[in-house]
C-alpha cells in the first residue's frame, strides 16, 4: 500500500465524532428537518467507518455496504421528506414536541 497513509484511528475518531454530532443533533433539535439531517450525518459517519475498515483489510465489503447505506439514506430521505410535508400540512408546524398526539 503506497501513498498517503491515514491511520485507522483517525478515521474512526472522525466517524465517531460525526456520529456523535448527528446524535446530539437528533436529540437536541426540535425541527424535524434538522432531525432528518442529523440522521443523514449519522448514516454517513457509519458509512465512513465501513469504508475505512474495508480499506484497512483490503476487502470490497466495506464499499458494498457504503453503497447500500447510500441507497437506504436516499430512500429514507424520500420517505422522510414526504412525511415532513404531511406533518407540516396537518400540524402546521415542524416542531416535533408539538406533534405528540400519539401519546398514550
Amino acid at each position, binding site marked *: 500500500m503506497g501513498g498517503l497513509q491515514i491511520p485507522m484511528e483517525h478515521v474512526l475518531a472522525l466517524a465517531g465524532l460525526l456520529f456523535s454530532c448527528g*446524535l446530539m443533533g*437528533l*436529540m*437536541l433539535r*426540535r425541527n424535524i428537518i434538522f*432531525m432528518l439531517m442529523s440522521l443523514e450525518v449519522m448514516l454517513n459517519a457509519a458509512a465512513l467507518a465501513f469504508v475505512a475498515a474495508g480499506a484497512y483489510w483490503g476487502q470490497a465489503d466495506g464499499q458494498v455496504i457504503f453503497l447500500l447505506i447510500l441507497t437506504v439514506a436516499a430512500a429514507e430521505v424520500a420517505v422522510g421528506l414526504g412525511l415532513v410535508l404531511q406533518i407540516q400540512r396537518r400540524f402546521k408546524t415542524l416542531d*416535533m*414536541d408539538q406533534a*405528540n*398526539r*400519539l*401519546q*398514550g
Partner: protein
Amino acid sequence: MNLIPLIPFFPLASAALLLLTTGRMPRGIAAVLGAGSVGLSALCVALTAQQFLATGEIQQITLWTWMAIDGFTPGIAFYVDGLTVVMMSVITGVGFLIHLYSIEFMWEDESLCRYFTYMNLFVAAMLLLVMADNLLLLYLGWEGVGVCSYLLVGFWYRDPANGAAARKAFVVTRIGDTAMALGLFLLLAELGTLDIQPLMAQAANQWQAGDTLPIIAAALLLGGAVGKSAQLPLHTWLPDAMAGPTPVSALIHAATMVTAGVYLIARTYGLFLLAPPVLEAVAWIGLATLLLAAFTAMAQHDIKRILAYSTISQIGYMFLALGVGAFASGIFHLMTHAFFKALLFLAAGAVIHCLHHEHNIFRMGGLRSRLPVVFASFLIGSAALAALPFTSGFYSKDAILLSAWELEGIGPWLWAGGLLGALLTSIYSFRLVFIVFFGETQTEPDKQPGWKMAAPLLLLCVLSLIGGWFALPLAGVFPAGEGHGVNHTIEVISIGTPLLGLLIAYLLFLGRQVSISSLVESPTGARLKDFWFSGWRIDSLYDALWVRPYCAVAQWWQNEPVDKFYNAVVSLSQWAHRRLLVTQSGELRWYATTMVMALVLMLAFMLRNAP
C-alpha cells in the same frame, strides 16, 4: 284384571292432570279429582287386600325394565305381600279421609289445585315406596315423598319462615338419604342386586351375623331411616315441618311419610338380623328419642308442635319395637298410630280452622261444649295415644313393651324406659285435652266443622277405637317370635301407667289440686321448662356446631378467596402498566434519547465484561 298397577296410577294421573292444567281447573273439579283419585286407589287396595287375605298369595308384577346396565336391571316392579297390603291400606285409607277433610279445610285457599297436585303426587310416591320390588324403586319413592314434603311444608311460601322450615326438613332428611344411598351402593357392589327378596336371601347366604359388611350396610340404611322418621339425632326438622297446612301434617308428618323409616327397616329386616349391634342401636335410638320427645312435648304451647313431638315419640316406640326384634308389633303400632295421630291432627286442624288460625293452647279452652265433634275426636285420639285400655294404641304399645321386657339382657331397661315414656305420653296428651277443651273459654269459635271435616274425624275415631283388633297378615313376612308368656304383673303395670298419667294430668291441669305454677316458677322448674321447651336445646346445638360454621365458611367463600390471588396479578399488571405508561410520551426526541442511553449502557456493560 290385576288392580295392583292401578293403585299408584290413579293419584299419579290426577297429579299430572292437575299439574298440566296449571291451576286453571275449577276448584270443584280439582277437589273431586284430588280426593276421588285417592278414593279410587283405596278401592283398588281394598279389592287387592281382600284377594290377598283370601288366597295369601304374594304377587310380584314387573311392569317394565327401568334400565339395564351390565346385568343390573332394576324394574318398575311391585311386590305385594302382607306388609305391603298393610302399608297400602294405611296410606290410601287414611290418605283418602285426609283428602276429603282437606277439601273443606283448604276450600278458601287460592292454591287449592296446587295443594291437591302435591298431595296426590305424595300419595303416588308413598305407594311406590311401599310397593317397590327393589330398593332403587323404593329410593325413587323415598325421594319423591321427600320432595312432596318439602313442597307442602313450604306450601304457604309467602311467609319466609315457612320456606326456611321446608328447607330445613329437606336438608336434614337429605343427610339421612345420603347415608341410605351409600348403603344401596354398598349392597349393590357386594351382592350384585337390589331386588329386595333375592338381596335378603343372598345376604343371609354370603354373610354371617356380626360380619363387618352387613353392619356397615345396615347402619347406612338406618341413617336413611333415622332421617326420614325424625329420630335422634336427625329429628329436628319435624317440629318445624308443622308450618305446612294441618292436613299435610296429618298425612305426611304423622301417618305415612315419617313412618317410611320404620317400613324400610321392617322390609330389610333380614339385613338387620345379620347386624345385631345395629339392631340394638335401633332400640336405643328409639328409646332415647321417645323419652326426649315426650319431655319436650310436655313444655310446648303450640298445639301442632305438641302433636309433632308426640309423633317423634311414637315413632321412637316403633323403632324400639324393631330394635327388640318385634317387627310385627312395630308395624302394628305404625298402623294404629296412623289412625289416632291422623285423628288428632285433623281434630287439631278443626280447632285451628274454627278459631281463626289460633295455635296457642293457652288461648283456647272450654271448647268441649262448643265443638262437640272435635272434642269427642280429640278425646278418643288422646286416649289411644296415651294407650288407655281397649283403645287401639293400648294393644300396639302393650305388645311393644311386652316384647321389650322379654328381650334378654337389655330388655328390662328398654321396658322401663318405654314405660316412663308411656307415663309422659299420657300426661302430655291429657294436658292438651284439659287445657284446650276444659276450663274457661278464651276464644269463641266462629264456625262449626262441616260434614267433609266431621266424617273423616268420625271414621278415624272408629278406627282408633277398634284398630287394636285388626289381625295384620304379617305372619308370612317376619320370623315368628316366640309367643308372649302371660305375665300378669307386667300387664297390670302397663295398664296402670297411662291411668296414672291421666290422674297426674287431671290433678295438675284440670282439678288444680296441685299447683303447677309454683313448680314452674321455681328457678329449677323454670330452667327445666325452658330447656324442654327448646327441645333440649338441640336446635341451638346444631346451629352452633354446623349451621353457623357452615354459613361462616359460605360467607368466606362468597368473597372468593381463590380470586384474591388472580386479582393481585391483575392489580400488579395494572400498576406496572401505569408506571410504564409515562415512557410512552409520544415525543420523538425522548424516544431517541432513551434508545441512545440504553445503547450506551449496553455498550458499557459489554465493554466491562470484555476480556
